[in-house]
């Protein structure tokens, strides 16, 4: 029985339950609604919730554990002597990767996916068992869900009485639903952090954290053979973070003044009509995919800067930090300007009136009243923009270089944390080499940095909000 059909049946049951519950409540009310605690619809909803919710919870748990259980049973059902890709051995002595491969092969064969290696009778036999078990499992699940739904219907239907506070119960169910929704987001974050953490730990068992955090040389290629060239395998993250910082600083030098001035112009000077056109246009910048910015930076801006540098006698790398930083700054302008615009608009008009009423000009008012009042919020906006710039990937992957150079010269090529993560993880990575694992350590540190920035920024913005609302 397919999952779609199961869910459709459940939905139909829920709808029926709603009408049953409401009908019974109406019958109880016998024409005079006032005897019931809640409107009949709430009794219907209460019944519907009791049908759908327990069955759905069961469904979610079942499908999250089903494959593990089925695979376990399949594994235990295999003969003691097994063959994996030409190797034959005792089942119990098989290395974990080999075991995983065999099980994956069985599951893939069962579902018609590509199987690695030849299809042995063992795999065929396992796959048949796999399919049988899976079908059985979904039937058991459907039956269990049906029982739960029926029990829920029965209990909720019988509980319909004038004194039952269906309205309050429905309210509670809604509260729980909303709480679950917000928990999902938080749990996902926790999951991401944990997965980062575990891989980073694996990295730190190979490379000491001190070397990683304070080392001045980054050269992640590790030697496969002794005599290989350029395979030093140094994992000092300082140059990588320095590159990120350099590009971020350049981006902020572009984005903060331009974004802030644009926001001031739009919120204080521009007429309503102009504002209505310019603001969306500016926000279009935010809608451009970063990969488009990336090739604009790599193919248009970087050569332009290099040629301009050549004219005045400067040596500019063709993948200069300046090009990446400039374009990243442009990408962030709408971010800064729309946040600042909101913050400037939140400064009460009465303060501006007060200043105008004292004979101050517009720019005096902005400089001495509006901006000081908005400053905490603007600082928050800038910090959010910084954390955005640090985490930005696509532009730097395309426009910044790969060589980890410890430099503050914007005409040099630098690399960034995100670029290193991408290059170390794409392709065909080996998960036991420090080169691959270093991506997780970089990611973890990057995450911590942006997290701190975001927390500080939100704190600052919050403090500012408390003042005027």
């Amino acid at each position: 029985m397919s999952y779609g059909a199961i869910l459709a049946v459940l939905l139909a049951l829920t709808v029926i339950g709603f009408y049953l519950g409401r009908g019974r409540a109406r019958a109880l009310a016998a024409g005079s609604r006032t005897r019931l605690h809640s409107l009949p619809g709430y009794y219907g909803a209460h019944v519907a919730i009791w049908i759908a919710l327990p069955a759905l919870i069961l469904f979610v748990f079942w499908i999250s554990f089903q494959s593990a259980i089925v695979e376990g049973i399949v594994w235990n059902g295999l003969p003691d002597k097994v063959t994996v890709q030409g190797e034959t051995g005792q089942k119990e002595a098989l290395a974990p990767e080999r075991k995983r491969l065999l099980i994956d092969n069985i599951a893939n064969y069962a579902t018609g996916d590509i199987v690695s290696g030849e299809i042995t009778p063992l795999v065929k036999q396992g796959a048949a068992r796999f399919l049988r078990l899976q079908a059985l499992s979904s039937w058991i699940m459907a039956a269990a869900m049906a029982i739960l739904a029926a029990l829920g219907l029965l209990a909720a239907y019988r509980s319909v009485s004038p004194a039952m506070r269906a309205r309050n119960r429905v309210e509670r169910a809604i509260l729980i639903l909303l709480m679950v929704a917000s928990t999902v987001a938080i749990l996902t974050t926790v999951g991401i952090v944990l997965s980062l953490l575990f891989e980073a730990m694996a990295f730190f068992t190979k490379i000491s954290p001190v070397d990683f955090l304070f080392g001045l040389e980054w050269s992640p290629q590790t030697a496969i053979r002794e005599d290989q060239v350029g395979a030093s395998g140094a994992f000092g993250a300082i140059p990588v973070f320095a590159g990120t910082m350099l590009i971020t600083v350049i981006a902020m030098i572009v984005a903060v003044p331009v974004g802030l001035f644009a926001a001031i112009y739009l919120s204080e000077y521009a007429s309503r009509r102009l504002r209505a056109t310019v603001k969306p246009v500016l926000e279009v910048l935010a809608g451009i995919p970063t990969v488009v910015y990336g090739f604009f930076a790599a193919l248009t801006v970087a050569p332009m800067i290099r040629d301009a540098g050549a004219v005045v006698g400067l040596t500019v790398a063709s993948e200069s930090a300046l090009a990446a930083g400039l374009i990243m700054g442009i990408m962030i302008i709408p971010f800064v300007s729309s946040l600042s615009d909101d913050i400037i608009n939140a400064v009460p008009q009465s303060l501006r009136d007060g200043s105008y009423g004292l004979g101050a000009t517009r720019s005096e008012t902005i400089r001495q009243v509006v901006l000081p009042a908005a400053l905490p919020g603007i600082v928050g906006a800038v910090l959010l923009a910084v954390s955005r710039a640090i985490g930005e990937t696509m532009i730097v992957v395309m426009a910044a270089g790969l060589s980890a150079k410890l430099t503050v010269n914007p005409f040099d090529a630098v690399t960034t944390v995100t670029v290193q993560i991408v290059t170390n993880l794409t392709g065909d990575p080996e998960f036991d080499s420090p080169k691959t694992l270093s991506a997780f350590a970089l990611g973890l540190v990057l995450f911590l940095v942006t997290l701190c920035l975001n927390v500080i920024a939100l704190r600052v913005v919050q403090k500012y909000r408390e003042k005027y609302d």
Partner: protein
Amino acid sequence: MDEIAMENIEAPPAAAIAEPADAPEFRVKMKTRNVNVHYAEKHALRDVSLDIGEREVTALIGPSGCGKSTFLRCLNRMNDTIDICRVTGQLELDGQDIYDAGVDVVQLRASIGMVFQKPNPFPKSIFDNVAYGPRVHGLFSDKSDLEEVVVQSLRKAGLYDEVKDRLGDPGTSLSGGQQQRLCIARAIAVGPEVILMDEPCSSLDPIATARIEELIDELRQNFTIVIVTHSMQQAARVSQKTAFFHLGDLIEQGETPQIFTNPRHEKTQGYITGRFG
């Protein structure tokens, strides 16, 4: 002018309605003729002609939306900051047309100060709030001079004794009534000739209101004051002249006692006796 003001701070306030014995003869400070205001399509003020006497308190009364605040905002061209607002007619300060193309609006607002309905101290210290105007206009020679201006302004606004030990505290830390007096001090510090007050007591409790009313009566010695108010008792207590607005028209104007005891117009009568509005 400082001497007089300081003496008056100490002296008990003069009786609210009575003319001072040494009152100079009536002199028109601001003259308005046929003032019309449009907000986009809406005709907010129709042919208002009103004379505002020097060193007097003129009260503008009327039901909400009658145009009294709009008229007040014409007097220092605050309506300029609203895009859709159009003002026509003749408005003069000491015989000078204030809507003339050559008029420096910024300077005009320095000589016609304004106090708003809701106290709106800047998010700065008490001192910096009062020093704001002098700083913007460069009205002082050195630091001690600026301090003198700030202290004098706070004295005239009757706030100095309450805040003299904490001039560095934020202006927003004061109570509502104190904040409003701070805003008055801030307006005084620029050295205006006219002070416009737009319902200055509407967000204050009765005690703070009484304190502001006393202050208005003291300020009359040195400043021409125009006050918009919803409270007829307040108009009666603080003003010498009263103008009654209704639906964008100036219905009646005259001496305050006459307006309140013997209104000529039926609508005025209706409003002050509380039959509408």
